[in-house]
């Protein structure tokens, strides 16, 4: 079943077309990767999918419902969670509290009930705390529960951010370069986590530079170059695709120059 339909999405910044008429589908229960040289428009596309940026053209259907024009908060509530290329943890809060914030989207108790410590507010609090503990266990980092986020190693920060995104109970989890800044051991742990997440029935979309990781985890890959989709298919096909090879070789040649 198609969970996400991206249709003719275009985003311009001034004279630059960052994403140019891109369309693809994401099937439920799969891991789909979005790759491409620097500046290909991957993060811009991610922002357009999650309400952080509004595309100039096109449509994003999530389970049949239009996402374009929704605020990030409503996108989260619809079931699309995301992480960031530069982890956006709350440094003064513990890992556990960070994950608890992920429950906010589906909780409703505000100032008045909290001030009076009403049972409904306490119940929501307990639910969030239990969920945070469960998710950190699922990802295998429960020993960091009470550590302030500022004191966490880079690899753990990535995983806490994933746990926090999972706390929003997403059907689609979008990860923006989750392996950036990780060593090989941490990357291997991340791969295990991604499989574990997919096995719970959550569809995963991933923007990543680490080709090894992308080839290992993804069922399908979309390749962007200068805003345009130049290839789409399973990893083996993408590895042999002449347009993809040219795009990446071109980038390397540019870097050498």
């Amino acid at each position: 079943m198609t969970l996400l339909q991206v249709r003719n999405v275009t985003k311009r910044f001034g004279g630059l077309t960052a994403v140019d008429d891109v369309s693809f589908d994401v099937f439920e229960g799969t891991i789909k990767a979005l790759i491409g040289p620097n500046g290909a428009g991957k993060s811009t596309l991610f922002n357009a999918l999650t309400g952080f940026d509004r595309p100039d053209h096109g449509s994003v259907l999530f389970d049949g419902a239009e996402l374009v024009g929704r605020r990030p908060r409503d996108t989260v509530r619809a079931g699309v969670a995301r992480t960031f290329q530069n982890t956006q943890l709350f440094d003064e809060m513990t890992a556990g509290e960070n994950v608890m914030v992920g429950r906010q989207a589906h909780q409703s108790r505000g100032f008045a009930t909290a001030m009076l410590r009403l049972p409904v507010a306490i119940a929501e609090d307990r639910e969030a705390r239990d969920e945070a503990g469960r998710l950190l266990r699922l990802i295998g980092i429960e020993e960091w529960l009470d550590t302030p986020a500022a004191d966490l190693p880079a690899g753990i920060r990535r995983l806490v951010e994933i746990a926090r995104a999972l706390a929003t109970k997403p059907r689609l989890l979008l990860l923006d370069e989750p392996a950036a800044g990780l060593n090989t051991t941490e990357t291997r742990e991340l791969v295990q986590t991604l499989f574990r997440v997919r096995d719970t029935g959550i569809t995963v979309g991933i923007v990543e530079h680490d080709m090894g990781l992308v080839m290992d985890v993804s069922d399908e890959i979309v390749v962007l170059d200068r805003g345009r989709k130049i290839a789409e298919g399973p990893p083996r096909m993408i590895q042999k695709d002449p347009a993809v090879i040219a795009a990446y070789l071109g980038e390397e040649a540019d870097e050498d120059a």
Partner: protein
Amino acid sequence: MMRGRTLRVLAPLAALVIVAVVPLVVTDRFLLKIFTFAGINALVVTGLALLFGYAGQVSLGHAAFVGLGAYTCAFCTVRLEWPWLLAFVVSGALAAVGGLVLALPSLRLKGHYLAMATLGFGLLMTLAFVEAEPITGGVDGFGGIPFPALGPIEIREASSLYWLVWAIVGIALVAAFNVTSMRPGRAMRALHGSELGAQACGVDIVGVKVRTFVVSALLAGLAGALYASVVGFVSPSVFTLTASIAFLAMAVLGGTGSLAGPLAAAVLLTLIQYLDALIPGIPRATAQTLQSYQEDIYGLAIVLVVVFAPGGLASMWRRRARGGQAS
């Protein structure tokens, strides 16, 4: 770990006992009045602790909300002859509405528009307090405000006023503690930590900021009503930019992510103004010098904290607590 938890229960209890017995020990009415003022300032600063220390928003105009509360209470009790409790509640409510009207448009915009808006609002209100003479009494002020009364019981003794004010501070602190330790508090700390991250978690960032601002304006309005009733007289010279900056200095010195720190800072910076009364032996000249440099002390406090201890008093003792656990 155990020691930290015991301390967390014992420290507020000890503070409660100390605050409660002050009028039994201190009989001097002027001194009691100073401690009462400390409580009124603590009420304002508790609201600012939520706004600045938890939600990370700056207000440069909170004295205007205090003034709004004070004049509302004066007008309602004297001109309208309302019962005090009703006037007190209406004073807080009106300040809260003022906060809402100010925060809603300025918080929808990104950046420091709230700080700018509060600065402008503060200056405007100072002018309004002077110019709206039929209501406020203009530069001459507004006198003859009755003491607080709970039903038929009038509260006029210095010790009773002290207890009334600090009881309200206590209630506000408990409510604020509940807010900070539950869902809204996590939302506030989250948007302080990373707005992008908070949005990705589904936090309604504008909504949380606006609500926090309204609560802080409400507390400032209630503090203003208490001030008017305790002093019996209000004049526009009290609710100025200088006062707003003093409140902000207390919140900044007190530190982020804490209620105890700003409380301590509010009491401390209030008492500094009355050093000559607190320490009888102090030479008059020294006290006067200190008083004339009061605004500079506030400014200096902000600068020193921002440069050397960005987390304020609260983070200094948090760091000590963490260090103690490690050793």
